[in-house]
């Protein structure tokens, strides 16, 4: 009898473990998004949902004061004007950037990254700009900063306040790209053995030396951003590569599959938040 009870107990534990594991692995993107957003809402109950687009300024009063001071005269103003000029200049074959995008490229930031079922790849705003240039006979711009960041900043500014609405189409490749982005987000890397989640999820709001770690929710909503540390505008790729180097991991090429999928995952997690780009960060 005792042996039977013991066997039953172990059986129940095994079944519970299998069920828990299966549930964890089989969660849909919608379920992931709900858990992700609820995690941050519970962790920072005093922060209004929309304010998560402001990064660490949303959760730290000192940084918020600095940020408000910076935003009195936004440091990206000239880059934004330059981006507008570039956007309106004709490409090599006389066509404009507007010809490559829905609604002439205005007010579309909230729909990027998107999954392109024709190529089976995630397309970010930056990769769409580069593809547009190539389609019309121009070479891609140097990545991470400069003109590419300026054009992306201008396009983001035309979507100010529109809410992110990233879609995962009913295509196994789209789900695979989402899952890959999720894996990249949670995978520890580098000699310091940190993942994106180590900082921007588990210890978000706490301090790493003198820095308050920003939450992952809404993290890319204000990109491209002007960072005082950089002294100019930078793209999401530039920021991710900076994080990789900080944990002593070898950065990947700009717009590599891993970076695009990561952007897809994090932006999907931030659905419902408003576009706030370009932004400024200390």
């Amino acid at each position, binding site marked *: 009898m005792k042996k039977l009870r013991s066997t039953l107990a172990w059986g129940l534990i095994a079944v519970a473990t299998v069920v828990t594991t299966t549930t*964890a*692995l089989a969660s849909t993107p919608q379920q*992931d998004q709900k*858990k*992700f957003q609820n*995690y941050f809402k519970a962790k920072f109950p005093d922060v209004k949902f929309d304010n998560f687009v402001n990064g660490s300024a949303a959760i730290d009063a000192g940084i918020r004061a600095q940020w408000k001071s910076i935003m009195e005269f936004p440091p990206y103003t000239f880059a934004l004007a330059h981006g507008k000029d570039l956007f309106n200049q004709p490409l090599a074959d006389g066509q404009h950037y507007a010809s490559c995008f829905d609604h002439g490229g205005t007010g579309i930031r909230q729909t990027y990254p998107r999954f392109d079922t024709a190529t089976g790849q995630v397309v970010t705003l930056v990769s769409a700009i580069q593809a547009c240039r190539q389609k019309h006979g121009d070479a891609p711009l140097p990545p991470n900063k400069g003109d590419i960041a300026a054009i992306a900043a201008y396009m983001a500014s035309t979507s100010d306040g529109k809410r992110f609405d990233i879609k995962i189409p009913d295509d196994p490749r789209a789900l695979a790209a989402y899952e890959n982005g*999720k*894996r990249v987000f*949670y*995978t*520890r*890397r*580098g*000699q310091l*053995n940190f*993942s994106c*989640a*180590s900082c921007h*999820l*588990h210890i978000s709001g706490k301090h790493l030396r003198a820095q308050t770690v920003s939450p992952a929710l809404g993290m890319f909503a204000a990109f491209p951003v002007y960072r005082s540390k950089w002294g100019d505008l930078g793209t999401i790729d530039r920021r991710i590569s900076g994080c*990789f*180097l900080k944990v*002593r*991991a*070898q*950065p*990947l090429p700009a717009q590599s599959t*891993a970076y695009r999928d990561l952007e897809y995952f994090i932006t999907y997690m931030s659905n419902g938040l408003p576009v706030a780009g370009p932004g400024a960060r200390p």
Partner: protein
Amino acid sequence: MTTAAGVTCTALAFAVCLVLAGCGSSDNPNARPSAPPDYIQKQADASAHAALPTKPSPAAAASASNAATAAHPLQAAQQAEKSALAQNCAWSVSEDALHKAEALAKQGKADESETAARRALSLIQASLFQCKQQKTAWKNAVVQ
């Protein structure tokens, strides 16, 4: 290793001496040296493959022997790093260490290159271990 290097050096020096002796014994200064006997040529070829000397002096042969020793950990590190890069899990510090070892090898500093390559290899092996471990471990960190 020292014995092998010594044998290599001696065999090579012996072969070269025979060639030079043949050349010197000729009365005609423009005469081409006669080919050494087959068994000596085979020994010389084997020595050349083993130690890759460019000049058959004892010092050069010793240096080449060191280079041959260093080639192994450097090549192992290069191969391991290729694997780490292919899996997107290379470390910046291991890349730096590997580049340092490669630069030292180019400068002909065989011993220092070997030490640097061994350090790079240990870093790369750690990155590959992390990579393997994280293939499933990342799932434990997912928000539930």
